[in-house]
C-alpha cells in the first residue's frame, strides 16, 4: 500500500553537494523543501572521528563510506557486441552513499573548467576544422559560457574556503597562479596550502623546463576559515587520510562542514535518510512531474508529491532514474536517436611512478592532503596547439602527494617480484624516496557514439529493477592524448633527478577494475538542442519542465579537470535561474 505524504514545493533526490546547494538556495527563497537521500545521515564528529577515521583497511580497502554493490550496481561491457556483466565490487569509480555524497570522501581538488571547454565543439571546429575531429566523436557545446558561470564558481570557492593562488584576476595574469585559467572576479578565499618537498622539487623542475607551475586549488584549509554562511572550518593537519575518507578534523570542505549545519536549521527544510527514490512520478499528461516515489529502510513505499523535482543523485543514477521513470527519449546508438544515456564519459588518467636515490631523498609521503599539489596546465583543454599531434583534449599533470598509506602506496620498481624477500626489501628501500602522485595525469575523455548508458536486459537490483548498463571503451584519440601527457609528465620527474621513471600509460580496452576517478560524466547532458540534449542551459528537462537535473550527468563531455567545482557552479547557476526566472513563470525557460 503506497502512502501519500503532504505536498511540498520542492523534492530533492539525493543530498550531496548539488542537493545541499539546491536545498539551501530554494529554502532560502522561501520554498518548502524536502530532500530524500538513499544512504544514512552523516555527521563529521561522530561518523569519522579522528581517533579512528584513519583506518586504511576499513575505508580505503573495504569501502565503508560508499554505496554497497549489494544495494545496487551496474553492468559493464566494452563493446555493443558483448554481453554486459555486473560490477560485483567497485573498481574504476566509487559511487558515494549517504548525506554529503561524494563531497564526504573527495580529495577536494576544486577546479574551474577552461572558457573553451564550454564551447568545445565550436572552438575546436573553428581552430582545426571539422575534419580534425574523429568521425564518431559526439562532443557538443554546453549552452552556458564560462563568463555566465564565473560568479557561481566564485560562490562555491568561498563556501568551501578553497586554498589557492589566482592566475587570472579580471584579465590580469598573476605570478605564481595558473596563467591559463579563465578570468576570476577575485582571489581564492585562502592562500595555497604548504607544499611538501616533492612539490617544491616538481615546481622547480617544471619552471626549468619552461612551464608555469602553480599550487593546485584545494578544499583542504590552509588556515582557519569562516564561510559566508557562518560555518567554520579548521586548518588541515596534512594527515594523509583524505580521499576515500571523511575528514573528522573539519578541515576538508564537504556539505557537512560548509552548508548542512545551516540548512538543517531552516524551518522550511526537512530531509529523509535511508530512503531510496525509485521513480519520478509523472502526471497523466506525462509532461509534468507530480513528485517522487521512494522506499524507506523498512521497505515501506511512499509517495512524496511536489511542484518541483530536483534530481541530484550521482551521475549514473540520474541517468538510470530518468530511464526508469520514462522521462525523455532513451538513446539508441544504432539509430543515433534519443538523448537519455547519450554522451556518457569517464576519464583518461595515468601514473608516472618515479624512484629516487634513498640516500639523498626523503619525501615523507604520509605528510599529505587530498588536494595539495603542484601542477601545470600547459597541456590541458586547448591550451596548446593540437595540430601536429593528431588528437584533441588534454589534462593537467601534477605532483599531488595525497597519501603514504602503506597498503595503497608502497611502490616498487617494475621487474621486482610481487612477493618474497626481494619484494619486501624493495618496499622498504623505496617507501620514503619514491613518488606516486595521487592524481598524476588527469586527462579528459571526450564523447563518442558508442559510449553510453542504457538499462540492462538481464541483471536486476534488489527492487527487481534493471541495472544501468555501461558500454564504454577508450578510443584512439584518448589513448594518443594520454601517451602525450604521460611522456611530458615523466620528463619533469626526470628533471627532478629521479634515477628511474616508470610510465604507466592508460591503455585500451577500458578496464572496469582499475580505479581512475569517480568522475563519471554525461548521460543526461545539457545543450541548446532538444534532439541532442536532455536538459537546457539551466539544467531543466526539455521534456518535463518542473524537473531540474544536477551533477556531472549534464556534462556533454569530460574536461581535463576534477568536476566538483563545475558541478557546484552549475547547481548555483540552475538555482539562480529557478529563483529569478522559473518561480515567476513556472514553465519551460527556453523555447526550442
Amino acid at each position, binding site marked *: 500500500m*503506497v502512502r501519500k*505524504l503532504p505536498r511540498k514545493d520542492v523534492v530533492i533526490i539525493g543530498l550531496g553537494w548539488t542537493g545541499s546547494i539546491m536545498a539551501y538556495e530554494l529554502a532560502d527563497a522561501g520554498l*518548502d523543501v524536502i530532500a530524500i537521500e538513499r544512504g544514512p*545521515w*552523516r555527521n563529521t564528529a*561522530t561518523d569519522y*572521528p579522528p581517533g*579512528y577515521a*584513519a583506518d*586504511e583497511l576499513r575505508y580505503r580497502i573495504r*569501502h565503508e563510506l560508499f554505496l*554497497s554493490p*549489494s544495494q545496487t550496481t551496474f553492468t559493464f561491457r*566494452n563493446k555493443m557486441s558483448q*554481453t554486459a*556483466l*555486473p*560490477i*560485483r*565490487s567497485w573498481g574504476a569509480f566509487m559511487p558515494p552513499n549517504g548525506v554529503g555524497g561524494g563531497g564526504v570522501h573527495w580529495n577536494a581538488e576544486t577546479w574551474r573548467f577552461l572558457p573553451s571547454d564550454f564551447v568545445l565543439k565550436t572552438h575546436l571546429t573553428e581552430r582545426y576544422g571539422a575534419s580534425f575531429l574523429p568521425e564518431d566523436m559526439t562532443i557538443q557545446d554546453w549552452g552556458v559560457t564560462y563568463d555566465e558561470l564565473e560568479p557561481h564558481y566564485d560562490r562555491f570557492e568561498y563556501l568551501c574556503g578553497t586554498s589557492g593562488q589566482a592566475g587570472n584576476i579580471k584579465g590580469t595574469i598573476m605570478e605564481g597562479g595558473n596563467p591559463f585559467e579563465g578570468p576570476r572576479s577575485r582571489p581564492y578565499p585562502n592562500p595555497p596550502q*604548504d607544499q611538501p*618537498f616533492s612539490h617544491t622539487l616538481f615546481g622547480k623542475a617544471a619552471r626549468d623546463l619552461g612551464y608555469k607551475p602553480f599550487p593546485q586549488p584545494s578544499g583542504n584549509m590552509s588556515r582557519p576559515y*569562516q564561510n559566508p*554562511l557562518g*560555518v567554520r572550518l579548521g586548518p588541515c*593537519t*596534512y*594527515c594523509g587520510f583524505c580521499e576515500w575518507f571523511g575528514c573528522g578534523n573539519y578541515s576538508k570542505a564537504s556539505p557537512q*562542514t560548509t552548508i548542512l549545519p*545551516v540548512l538543517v536549521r*531552516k524551518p*522550511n527544510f526537512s530531509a529523509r*535518510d*535511508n530512503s531510496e527514490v525509485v521513480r519520478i512520478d509523472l502526471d*497523466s499528461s506525462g509532461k*509534468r512531474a*507530480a513528485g517522487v516515489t521512494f522506499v*524507506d*529502510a*523498512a*521497505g515501506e*513505499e*511512499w509517495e512524496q508529491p511536489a*511542484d*518541483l523535482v530536483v534530481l541530484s543523485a550521482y551521475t549514473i543514477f540520474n541517468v538510470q532514474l530518468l530511464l526508469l521513470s520514462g522521462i525523455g527519449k532513451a538513446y539508441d546508438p544504432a539509430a543515433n536517436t534519443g538523448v537519455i544515456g547519450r554522451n556518457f564519459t569517464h576519464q583518461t588518467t595515468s601514473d608516472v611512478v618515479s624512484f629516487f636515490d634513498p640516500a639523498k631523498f*626523503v619525501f615523507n609521503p604520509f*605528510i599529505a592532503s587530498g588536494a595539495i599539489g603542484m601542477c601545470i596546465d600547459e597541456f590541458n583543454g586547448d591550451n596548446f596547439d593540437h595540430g601536429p599531434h593528431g588528437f584533441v583534449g588534454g589534462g593537467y599533470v601534477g605532483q599531488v602527494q595525497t597519501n*603514504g598509506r*602503506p*597498503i595503497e602506496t*608502497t611502490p616498487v620498481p617494475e621487474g621486482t617480484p*610481487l*612477493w*618474497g624477500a626481494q619484494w619486501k*626489501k624493495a*618496499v622498504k628501500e623505496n*617507501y620514503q624516496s619514491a613518488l606516486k602522485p595521487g592524481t598524476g595525469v588527469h586527462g579528459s575523455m571526450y564523447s563518442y557514439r558508442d559510449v553510453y548508458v542504457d538499462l540492462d536486459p538481464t541483471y536486476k537490483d534488489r527492487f*527487481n529493477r534493471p541495472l544501468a548498463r555501461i558500454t564504454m571503451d577508450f578510443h584512439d584519440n584518448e589513448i594518443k592524448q594520454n601517451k602525450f601527457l604521460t611522456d611530458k609528465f615523466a620528463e619533469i620527474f626526470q628533471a627532478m633527478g629521479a634515477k628511474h621513471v616508470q610510465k604507466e600509460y592508460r591503455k585500451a*580496452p577500458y578496464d572496469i577494475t582499475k580505479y581512475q576517478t569517480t568522475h563519471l560524466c554525461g548521460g543526461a547532458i545539457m545543450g541548446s538542442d532538444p534532439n541532442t540534449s536532455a536538459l537546457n542551459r539551466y539544467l531543466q528537462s526539455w521534456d518535463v519542465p*518542473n524537473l531540474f537535473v544536477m551533477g556531472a550527468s549534464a556534462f556533454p563531455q569530460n574536461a581535463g579537470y576534477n568536476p566538483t567545482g563545475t558541478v557546484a557552479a552549475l547547481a548555483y547557476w540552475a538555482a539562480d535561474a529557478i529563483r529569478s526566472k522559473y518561480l515567476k513563470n513556472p514553465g519551460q525557460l527556453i523555447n526550442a
Partner: protein
Amino acid sequence: MFLSRTKKGAISFRPVITFNRWMTGRPAPTKAKIGLRNRPALGSLADSSLDMPMRRRTFLVSLATWLVGTTSLTRARMIHGHAPWSPYPNSAPELVRPGPWQFFTLDEARAMEAIVDRIIPPDPETPGGKDAGCAVFIDRQLKGPYGASQNLYTLGPFTKGTKEQGPQSELTPGELYRKGLAALNKHCTSTHGGKSFVELSPTEQDDVLRKIEAGEIKFEGVDAQGFFSALLKDVPEGFFSDPIHGGNRDMVGWKMIGFPGIRYDYRDWVSRHNERYPLPPVSIAGRSDWTPAKS
C-alpha cells in the same frame, strides 16, 4: 508542523545538537518566509494523486531478502530542525584480540602461517608474515563480512567475462581459501611423497608458490592463480593495516618503512624538506609504550 509518517518507532528526536568547536553559535541567516503553502502551487498539478500502475509493487520483490542482510540499525528517519545526532552512528572499530582461530581449522591455520612467511619472509630487522600476525588478520577477515562477500553484488547469472569486466566468481573469499588450501595440500602430498605444504622446506614451499603464480600448477575445482592473487592482496594488507585488525603486530610493517601511522598533525613538518620524520608510529589503539607497564 510536518506530519511525520515514518514507520512507528523509527524516529527518536533528540535535543537540538550542540555543534562542534568549529561552528559559530550564531543563528542561520535565513530569509525563509514560511507559509507558502497557501500560495498557488508552482505550475499546474491537478492530478498528482492519480492511481499509479501496479508495477510499483514489483519494487518490493526481493526487498525482504535484502533487508535480512542489512543492519537493524538502518532506519529511515525524518530530519527536521536539527541534525539527527547520535554518538558513533558508524560504530567504533572492532579490536581484534588474540585467541583461537575463528575461520581456519588448525591444519589450515598452520598452512596459512607457512604461506604468509613465504610471501613476507622474516629478515634480521623485521619479522615475517607469521610473526606480524598476517594469518590471524586473514582469519578474522574471512570470518567477517569480507569472507562472505557480504556487501557485494552476488546475484546471478554467473558468466565468466573478459578481464576488463572484473571477477565474476560465485565463490566468496571464504570459500576460495577453504578450497584453495585443501587443493594446495592435496597437490603437495601427491607430489612430495606425502608431505603437506608445512612439511616442505622453505625453498620447496617457494617453488610450489612460484609455480602456482606462473600457472604451472593447476588445482582441481578451484582457480589456483585466483587463490594466489587473493593471497598477494590479503597478506600485505595484514602486514600494513592498522594493528587493530590483527596483523601488523607491534606496528612492525609501519616501522619497517617509516610510516608514523595515524593522528599526527604534520603542520610543523610539512615545510621541513628532506628531513626524516622522527616520531614513532601510533595506531588507532594508541601505542603500547604510552601505557605504563603493570608492576
